[in-house]
């Protein structure tokens, strides 16, 4: 879409928000409809497809054998990657990961890693020698805004779906599994767009284009905050941050029911 057309559309978003209205008639603190399904790929140890309104993403988990880092010989690890595939939006391009893709994958990574959702000691097979590396890869199929939350939901759903391959003689036995991956908690991101002086949950693409700043907060099912990420050119007041935290805590409970 041309910049000029985006400008017309974002003007509409801003005009509506002055009356606390969104173009799709959602409440300011409401998510779009969410659908979660698994079975995206049999070759994956776990996978999920998430539709968040018209935003559509997939996540897949591969459990790969590796050797531990010297400074944590008894721990496996995770790796989160996101590719902003040009299939999903006309402004994306192939090539080495750009800052946008790096940011979202690192935020989803921290949301899972630092919430201690996975016990990295469980991912150690043989201390100092063999561990699991849990690769979580994220792709958009259609981006209509808020990839942060869509990726976060899909990543968690894929982890919930993940089976651990069976091992014999230090090698993976293809197609056989020794059980499910254990998750200690369920962290989820909730992302807000600040447009003028209004803050809305789960922005669409046009709301994203209209936004001055972005704020994401990750909450867990046991009521912890586990990640923040502020982005965009504008700033937030402390009160706005607190309000985002409140809304995120409630909204993520609704999302978790879909998993």
């Amino acid at each position, binding site marked *: 879409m041309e910049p000029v057309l985006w400008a017309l559309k974002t003007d509409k978003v801003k005009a509506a928000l002055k009356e606390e209205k969104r173009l799709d008639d959602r409440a300011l603190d409401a998510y779009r409809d969410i659908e979660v399904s698994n079975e*995206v*790929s*049999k*070759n*994956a*140890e776990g*996978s999920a497809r998430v539709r968040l309104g*018209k935003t*559509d993403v*997939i996540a*897949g*988990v*591969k459990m*790969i054998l590796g050797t531990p880092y010297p400074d944590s010989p008894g721990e496996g690890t995770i790796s989160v*990657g996101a*590719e902003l*595939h*040009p*299939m*999903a*939006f*006309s402004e994306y391009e*192939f090539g080495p990961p750009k800052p946008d893709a790096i940011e979202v994958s690192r935020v989803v990574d921290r949301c899972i890693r630092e919430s201690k959702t996975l016990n990295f000691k469980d991912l150690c097979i043989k201390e100092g020698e063999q561990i699991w590396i849990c*690769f979580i*890869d994220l*792709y958009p*199929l*259609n*981006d*209509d805004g808020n990839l942060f939350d869509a990726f976060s939901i899909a990543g968690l759903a894929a982890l919930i779906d993940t089976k651990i391959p069976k091992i014999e003689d230090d090698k993976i036995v*293809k197609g056989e599994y020794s059980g499910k991956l254990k998750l200690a908690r369920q962290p989820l991101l909730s992302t807000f767009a600040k447009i003028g002086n209004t803050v809305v949950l789960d922005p669409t693409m046009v709301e994203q284009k209209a936004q001055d700043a972005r704020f994401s907060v990750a909450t867990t099912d046991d009521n912890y905050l586990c990640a923040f990420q502020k982005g965009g050119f504008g700033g937030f007041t402390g009160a706005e941050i607190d309000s985002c935290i409140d809304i995120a805590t409630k909204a993520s409970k609704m999302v978790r029911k879909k998993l």
Partner: protein
Amino acid sequence: MAKKDEKIDYVKNGKRVDGRKVEELRPLTIEVGVIDNADGSAYLEWGQNKVIVAVYGPRELLPKHKQDPRKAIVNFQYRMATFSVPDRKNPRPARREIEISKVCSEALQRAVFAERFPNTVIDVFVQILDSNAGSRAAGLSAASVALADAGIPMRDLVASTGVGKAGGEIILDLNKFEEDAPDAVDIPIAIMPRTEEIVLLQMDGLLTTKEWKKCLELGVKGCKQVYEVQRAALQKKYDAAGAVKGKEKKKEEKAAKKEKVK
């Protein structure tokens, strides 16, 4: 793997290891119009293969020095999701993916009336979500449906399948188990079904000329089965050719208008 040493009957009493007949495709379904942002799109399942395709264009090709003033360039980009294969695929495009993208771009170029859209590119993004032998035929077959969905005027659809040999038997649409036979020969083939013109053909393995003739015959048959599924999928979305034609016309008008502006 150990099986390689035993004698396997790849066809026994007319049935293959997965129960299929020699001339039978794995289950194939195509859904049209699955990506909202794209100009055209399709989702295809073929056995375990799962493929999604988005078409964007014709749109101006940038940088300008890559433009062809005589035609649109079809840019088919085949990529596998990291988790679509038994071992995790490195996210960077592999040489295999680059070669497949090249030969499939060339196959589709033949089918599209590219000369009507000079200086543009038609991007065809093909993402393999899951795979089990035959993903390039799956991607190419889905892509031509997505092109039609985008209203790109075409000489014909491109229908593709695998065909080849396993355990001495000439069979259609090999699955991974058959492709791993010690004497396996895999032949991806794509045709424009109306004229049977071959627009993609690759082969590797050891084959006699006689075996090849059987493969060709069977491959063409297979492509025609794929063609039926492609047409049914398009039919299902559009009330026959009407809607397609409408979209096609729109594109051409758009192109014509652009030319005037210049």
